[in-house]
């Protein structure tokens, strides 16, 4: 065998898993099809600006800290995390603008000014959420991919059953159980929408993201790519090999057991273990092939829907924007988010009315743009269908350009167009071309309680021996902490099985 482990894809799940395998003495190779690593958590240079591909913040750094603890190295030596405070500036559907700081008591004062009836709800929400996070501190990196593991988790965290009703409800259900005012509900319920599911279908646990942010959010110095690069540097110190521009075409099998991979140029590399950091549908249907799977496995993979994709717009400015926080969120009302899903997304049309999310990265790290300039990443219009009815994303770019400028005039400042130095667009189709995410779904598979944890594709494949999965298609879905956690969990499985 050429290697003991091959990891396909250098996203956060792939790099974290590969680095820990190398630390555990396995001869490990990472194959990345792009010329830069990180997948959706990456940064690229364009005319002096550095833009983040997708992810724009680190919330809940526990899995990252766990990764470095397991690797036996201090995180500070590899990744510098800059605290971001305030967390968000909100522009809500009723025209209010307010900025939310990290401090929970100060946030309480803001809620009191908008909706005094929700102050008690906020206090209960924080008390319950903090209790949950304290008692289940390393929950994210604890596997829950089988009934046995779920039982072990219950024994490890006996108070978990208190929180079960919140796990079973929808994101909107959890939000409504604490907050009554539509403006406050909208600021808590938008998170699942930006993870690719409407609030009324998203996981109840996502409701607590609104609290997690108050426990501290950070931005890595050098852009989001600093995270995968820091982890890869550590992996290389332990002997991990990483090749970019190396696209894998096929996972090679022998008697339903992996034996290596074949690259797009025809090169075959053998390995006892293969870890795929790609979307599970791509892994099973394209790299393994439906013909090599049982009808049971085919039915399982086929049953997953993809998460909704989002168009991203990268903007370089020659002046400081009139913003107050790293993130500015123009949030639609809960009703608008649900309607966008029920009446637009599911019918293949783009909602006319929707919000946007502006990440002002140079607020946290000025080095990401030339002196006096600023870089913005704009999630324009929120999640959309992959194939808009009757049109192609490439043909819609002029409309998006016009729409995003209008939106920035509304959200940032009226003369923003005079300060635009660079503006380019990445549609779901571009994400599919660049990152190979089917339908541009950067969050992988749709996430609800029927497609998470033990009902999401198992990191230790039950269909193909010695095939492992990491990334957004496993465990708790997409996002920086969850994909790093998935890499940690998968590496633990491999060390248990082959270490």
């Amino acid at each position, binding site marked *: 065998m050429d290697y003991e482990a091959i990891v396909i894809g250098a996203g956060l799940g792939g790099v974290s898993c590969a680095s820990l395998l190398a630390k555990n003495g396995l001869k490990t190779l990472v194959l990345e099809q792009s010329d830069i690593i990180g997948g959706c958590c990456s940064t690229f240079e364009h005319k002096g600006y550095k833009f983040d591909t997708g992810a724009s913040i680190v919330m809940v750094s526990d899995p990252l800290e766990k990764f470095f603890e397991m690797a036996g190295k201090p995180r500070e030596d590899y990744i510098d995390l800059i605290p971001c405070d305030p967390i968000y500036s909100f522009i809500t559907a009723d025209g209010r603008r307010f900025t939310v700081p990290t401090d929970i008591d100060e946030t309480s004062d803001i809620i009191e000014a908008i909706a005094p009836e929700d102050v008690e709800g906020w206090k209960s929400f924080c008390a319950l959420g903090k209790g949950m996070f304290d008692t289940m501190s390393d929950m994210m990196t604890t596997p829950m991919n089988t009934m046995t593991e779920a039982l072990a988790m219950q024994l490890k965290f006996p108070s978990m059953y208190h929180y079960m009703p919140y796990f079973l409800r*929808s994101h*909107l*259900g959890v939000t409504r159980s604490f907050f009554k005012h539509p403006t406050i509900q909208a600021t808590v319920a938008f998170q699942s929408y930006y993870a690719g599911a409407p609030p*009324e*279908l998203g996981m109840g646990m996502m409701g607590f993201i609104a609290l997690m942010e108050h426990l501290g959010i950070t931005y890595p110095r050098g852009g989001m790519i600093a995270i995968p690069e820091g982890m890869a540097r550590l992996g290389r110190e332990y002997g991990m090999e990483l090749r970019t521009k190396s696209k894998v075409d096929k996972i090679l099998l022998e008697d339903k057991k992996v034996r290596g991979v074949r690259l797009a140029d025809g090169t075959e590399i053998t390995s006892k273990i293969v870890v795929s950091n790609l979307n599970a549908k791509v892994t099973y249907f394209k790299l393994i092939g439906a013909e090599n799977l049982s009808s*049971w*496995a085919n*039915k*399982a*993979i086929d*049953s*997953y829907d993809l998460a909704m994709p989002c168009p991203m717009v990268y903007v370089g400015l020659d002046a400081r924007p009139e913003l107050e926080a790293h993130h500015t969120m123009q949030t639609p009302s809960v009703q608008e988010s*649900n309607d966008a899903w*029920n009446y637009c997304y599911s019918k293949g049309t783009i909602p006319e009315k929707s919000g946007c999310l502006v990440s002002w990265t140079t607020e946290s790290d000025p080095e990401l743009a030339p002196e006096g300039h600023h870089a913005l990443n704009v999630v324009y219009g929120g999640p959309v269908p992959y194939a808009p009815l009757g049109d192609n994303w490439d043909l819609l770019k002029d409309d998006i350009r016009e729409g995003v400028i209008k939106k920035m005039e509304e959200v940032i400042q009226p003369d923003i167009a005079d300060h635009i130095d660079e503006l380019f667009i990445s549609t779901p189709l571009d994400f599919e071309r660049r990152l190979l995410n089917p339908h541009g779904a950067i969050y992988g598979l749709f996430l*609800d*309680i*029927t*497609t998470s944890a*033990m*009902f*999401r*594709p*198992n990191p230790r*494949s*039950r*269909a193909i021996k010695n095939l492992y999965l990491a990334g957004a298609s496993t465990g708790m879905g997409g996002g920086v902490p969850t994909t790093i956690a998935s890499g940690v969990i998968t590496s633990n499985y491999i060390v248990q099985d082959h270490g």
Partner: protein
Amino acid sequence: MSKNAKRIIGMGTLAGMVIAYLSLDESTRRYLAHIGKQVPYLPYRYWI
């Protein structure tokens, strides 16, 4: 318990469930309907 009593209890439970479902708001109904549609796939998803 007589057969009729069992039948009455069964029908009462069913009627109660229908009333409870109808008393839910539209979002919760859509959530339950969505989850209900996914249930048949759970055994497949567990064993992949």
